[in-house]
């Protein structure tokens, strides 16, 4: 007779044969995300006089493989904010579902108008990210939230897989923080200069920065999404093509890989 606890309540092996353990939940330790698998690269955003421009390309990579080429990494929230995701795509989709639930319950409790501003949404997301990192089960993303704050002023802030938050006139995640952020900071070094920037200028800065990223970031693509958020709402374009590319500079790049001359 098997008296061990794991055999309790199970049919006896000597009568019924060995128990098929595949029917019970395995006793293994629960597993958490330890690394991102399918990933999106940079998200860029910059504030201007009346709002915020945000962009991300439509690529989801599997390691160095350009796996999915039509993945939308910007999502609108309540018609007043946009969330941009870098990092793990499945975690992005999880947060997406979560935000849809949040919209639903918010619409139920106040149906007539959206009440969660971008500032409120950013706070909520950062608490979510921080809670998950504290459970050692992080959502492997770097997120930008763009929109307007409770006073109607342009709002732009980031949160990452650790729950770290920060806000600046221009923000970029991933490689964008090294390649695009210097370009954007030249146009909007501080809040005052961002408040002078026109919408057209801001869009142009973002498009140029996306182009630089496409030139230099191997995990990027030339089809991208761009959204402009003002008090009039969100103007989201999800299938933009990088215009005016010039690869003339590529000839002059030397000193990498096997090329020695």
């Amino acid at each position: 007779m098997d008296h061990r606890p794991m055999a309790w309540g199970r049919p006896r092996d000597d009568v019924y044969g060995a128990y098929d353990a595949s029917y019970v939940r395995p006793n293994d330790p629960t597993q958490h995300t330890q690394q991102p698998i399918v990933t999106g690269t940079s998200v860029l955003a910059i504030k201007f006089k009346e709002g915020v421009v945000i962009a991300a390309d439509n690529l989801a990579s599997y390691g160095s493989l350009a796996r999915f080429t039509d993945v939308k990494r910007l999502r609108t929230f309540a018609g007043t904010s946009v969330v941009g995701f870098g990092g793990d795509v499945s975690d992005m989709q999880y947060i997406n579902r979560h935000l849809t639930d949040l919209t639903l319950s918010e619409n139920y409790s106040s149906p007539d108008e959206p009440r969660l501003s971008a500032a409120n949404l950013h706070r909520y997301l950062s608490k979510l990210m921080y809670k998950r990192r504290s459970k050692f089960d992080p959502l492997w993303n770097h997120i930008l939230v763009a929109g307007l704050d409770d006073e109607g002023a342009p709002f732009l802030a980031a949160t990452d897989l650790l729950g770290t938050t920060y806000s600046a006139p221009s923000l970029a995640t991933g490689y964008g923080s090294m390649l695009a952020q210097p370009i954007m900071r030249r146009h909007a070094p501080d809040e005052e200069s961002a408040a002078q920037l026109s919408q057209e200028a801001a869009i142009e800065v973002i498009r140029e920065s996306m182009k630089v990223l496409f030139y230099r970031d191997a995990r990027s693509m030339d089809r991208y999404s761009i959204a402009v958020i003002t008090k009039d709402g969100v103007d989201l374009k999800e299938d933009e093509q990088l215009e005016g590319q010039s690869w003339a500079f590529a000839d002059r790049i030397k000193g990498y890989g096997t090329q020695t001359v």
Partner: protein
Amino acid sequence: MAAMFSQNPLMNGAHYATTDAPKTNDYREHRFYPYTDNGGTTLAISGADFTVMAGDTRHTSGYSINSRTEPKLFKIGGTTADQHDATIVLSVCGFAADGNALRDQLDTICKIYRYRHGKAMSANACAKRLSTILYGKRFFPYYVHAMLGGIDEEGKGVVYSYDPVGSYERETCRAGGAGGSLIMPFLDNQVNFKNQYAPGSGVGHDLQERERRPLLLDEVETLVKDAFDGAAERHIEVGDSLQMFILTKDGIEEKILPLKKD
């Protein structure tokens, strides 16, 4: 694969969310590291009837500057969300997400205290409570160097400084964070007059220490600015702007001064 989605491929170790720690030649353990260091420096000096709390506003990840305007100083325990009538200031330096969580927790506790007792929490009660909060996470600490500034029940300025797990002490001055070790010796000399002797008092055991006296507010403000200019010069994680809170019995005054942005 994680390196694809990195803050900065040059950085590794504590600045980076994942650590690749080779255990043996056969295995590589790859695990999530829940902390990071967001840099910056904080400084607090207490006077006879005032306290000055200061911090830079640079927020970093590795070699990148995330923001030039992210505060490390927070007013605590006011009646409203804008903290216009707060009397206590908390400064946190280190892992910014933990710092924000700590600030939220302490402020909530102060609000509940006010609701239950109908009065604001005193600085020393708040200081003790902060220690308990930090120790409450002894085995998964808030990775921050916290400081609390206020005015005590006798009207004197107070500064309490903490280690990440809640050991705390009332001090006349303390510098913390990335530039803490650069500023602290300067404060020893300029605030507590360490290694300053009366001129002509002799050598060796004959040396007379310079007599200690509490500093005046404008002297302290100058010291703070000098200390941060020095730290910004020599430490890459310090700079952009200096945020200063001056706490007196009349309330809290805020000053923002420019620092080096390079």
